[in-house]
Structure formats: C-alpha cells, structure tokens
C-alpha cells in the first residue's frame, strides 16, 4: 500500500518532474528571448532523440532502449553544441555550461517513462504536449524576469521611469522565485491544498 502510494507520488506528479527537469535551463532564462531559445533547443534535442529511438524500436530491445536513448541524446546535444556557434556566436558563449546540461533535463524527463512498452504514436503525442507546456512555462519565466528585472521586453524598454526594477529576478535565485510562484498559481487554480 505504502509502496503504491510512493510510486503514485513519483509517477503522477508531473509538476515535480517538470520543476526538477527545467532547473538546468533556468539559469539562462534572464530574458524572454534567451528562455525561449533555450526551451526550443531543449525541445528539439528531446524530440529528435525520442523520435530516433522509437523509430528504431524494431531493432532496439525494450531493455536496451535506455542505453540507446542516452547515446542518441549525447549525440544530439553534441551536434547542437557544434552547430550553435555558427548560428549565433554570442548566444552560444552566453550559454556556457548550460548547453550540455540539456542532457540532464532530457534524462529526467525520460526516466519518467523509461522501459514502458508504449506505441510510438502515444509517446510522440505525449512529448508534443509536454514540449508545448515546457515552451510556455519557459517563455513565462523569461518574460517575468525580463519585464520586472530589467523593465524591458524583447530588448525594448517599456516600463515607465520611476518604477523600481526588481533586480533579484535577474539573478539565478530570481528564477526560482518565479518558478515557485508559478507552481503556487497552478496548484491554486487546480484547487489543490
């Protein structure tokens, strides 16, 4: 009974998994554009690795799927790591260690439903839904941190002078404030106590 409850807590609580998994990419969510780009890169890596692993499900065993996933994931992150500086060098340099950390996020997401025998269609539908959620959440966090922290949005000054900026939102701790606030609002709307 207790065992079941513990499992449920781990399995059903999407929000907890989300919180844990987006921590690696929170650090660079100081502006809307940064947060959005990072969410898009993460989604791309996540989606492509999962897609490849499931497309090869005829040749990959269920219990070696996870190893294959790790490999493909590392491969995709390395490819992005190599190609991103050609697309936008400044953005790539501002990411630093956070780009390889995408691996962590994907691993946490993946561990959630590893070794489950599902059809590829179910998994991909699921992932698309999660990716949209992820992008919306990251965009919100980035927008809040940029708007209240810098008084800008997408690089344009829009807050009138005289309104104090909440500088703590620009620090890493600020990301957690926004995240905690978001979790509170979501739980509140869902009516949980």
């Amino acid at each position, binding site marked *: 009974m207790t065992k079941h409850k513990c499992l449920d807590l781990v399995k059903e609580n999407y929000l907890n998994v989300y919180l844990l998994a987006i921590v690696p990419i929170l650090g660079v969510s100081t502006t809307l554009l940064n947060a959005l780009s990072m969410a898009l890169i993460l989604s791309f890596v996540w989606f492509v690795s999962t897609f490849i692993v499931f497309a090869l499900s005829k*040749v*990959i065993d269920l219990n070696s799927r996870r190893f294959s996933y790790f490999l493909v994931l590392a491969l995709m992150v390395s490819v992005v790591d190599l190609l991103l500086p050609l697309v936008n060098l400044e953005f790539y340099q501002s990411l630093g260690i956070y780009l390889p950390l995408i691996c962590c996020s994907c691993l946490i997401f993946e561990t959630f439903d590893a070794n489950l*025998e599902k059809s590829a269609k179910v998994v991909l539908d699921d992932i698309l839904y999660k990716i949209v959620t992820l992008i919306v959440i990251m965009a919100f966090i980035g927008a809040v941190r940029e708007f209240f922290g810098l008084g800008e949005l997408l690089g344009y000054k829009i807050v009138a002078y005289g309104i104090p900026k909440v500088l703590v939102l620009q620090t890493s701790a600020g990301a957690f404030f926004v995240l905690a606030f978001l979790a509170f609002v979501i739980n509140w709307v869902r009516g949980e106590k």
Partner: protein
Amino acid sequence: MKERNLGYKTTFIVLLSAFGFVLLFAIHALIDSTLKARLAAQRLELITSVIDTEFDENPLENMILINSADGKEKLELYPIRQNGVINSVVIRVGNPRGYGGYLEILVGFYTDGTISRYKVITHNETIGLGSKITEEKFAEQFQYANPERMAFKVTKDGGDLDAITSATISSRAVIDAIQKAFDAYQRFIVGE
C-alpha cells in the same frame, strides 16, 4: 517483443556509438575553419572597439606578451599599426579583486599613455550595482585620462575618479586593472 541475446545488444550499442563518433568527427571537420575565423573576427572586433585610430595590420598577429610591473604576470599587448608605425596599443589585463571575483578588461592606450577606452570582457559583479562598470556612465570618465597626470583613484581614496554608488570595490578593481596595464606599458616603453 522478444528478448534478444546479449551479443546482439552489445553490437547494436557499439555500432550506434561508432556512428555517433563518425558523425561528430565529420561535422567538426566541416565547421572547424569557419568557427575559428568567426572567433578571430570576434576578438578583432573586441580589440578594435577600445581604440579609435586607424590600422592596416592585424593586431592579433602582432600580439606580444609583456611583463607586468611587478614581474609576476604576463599581459597580452596588441600593437595597432598603420604604415608600420604604432599609433596605439591594446592591453588585456585581469584583476582577481573584483567584488564577485576575477574580472578581465581590455584597455586601449595612445602611445603617450593616455587611455582611449576600456571594455570589460568577463566579470561576475553584482547585477545592477557592480555590473555598472560595463556602462558608459562610469566608463566615460576614463576617456582621454592619463593615470600619470591625475590622482588615479576613486574620490573615497583621495583621487579624481567617481566610483559607482555602492560599488566602490568594483570601481577600484577596474581602476587597479587599468593602473596595472598602464604600469606594464610604461615599463615596456622604457625597456624598448
């Protein structure tokens, strides 16, 4: 799904890794030269952003290492040459005593030691306070200043330079770094 034997799984994983290795190697070989050119262009842009004299030789290729005044460090000096004559130099200098630790700046000098401009490359100063060392309001007082002809300290220490409000340590770190670059440059000229 039927269970396959261990040999099959191992072979599959090894083949997948080999494929990944080949793919990464190919991509790296393809983009390496382009990326190096981009990085060099970025460095050149950084270096030329702190001077306003013309040049016709690539300062990156003429880079020399000079000793700091105490002889403990090597600083990178980029001579800016036109028609073979040096009209200014750029020195890259670091200071570990910023409020958030190490900060690194590029300082541009005219040949007589007057500062043209400086630019912060890396810093970990507090956002909104110490990070103002990158802003024009603080940086403009260094333009055309000569550390020899003025008290090159913040007003709190009896000097002529305005510190950033509530970020005296960060301001001092920048001033110290510029002073270090200036001293090294003076010694370098005398030695030459």
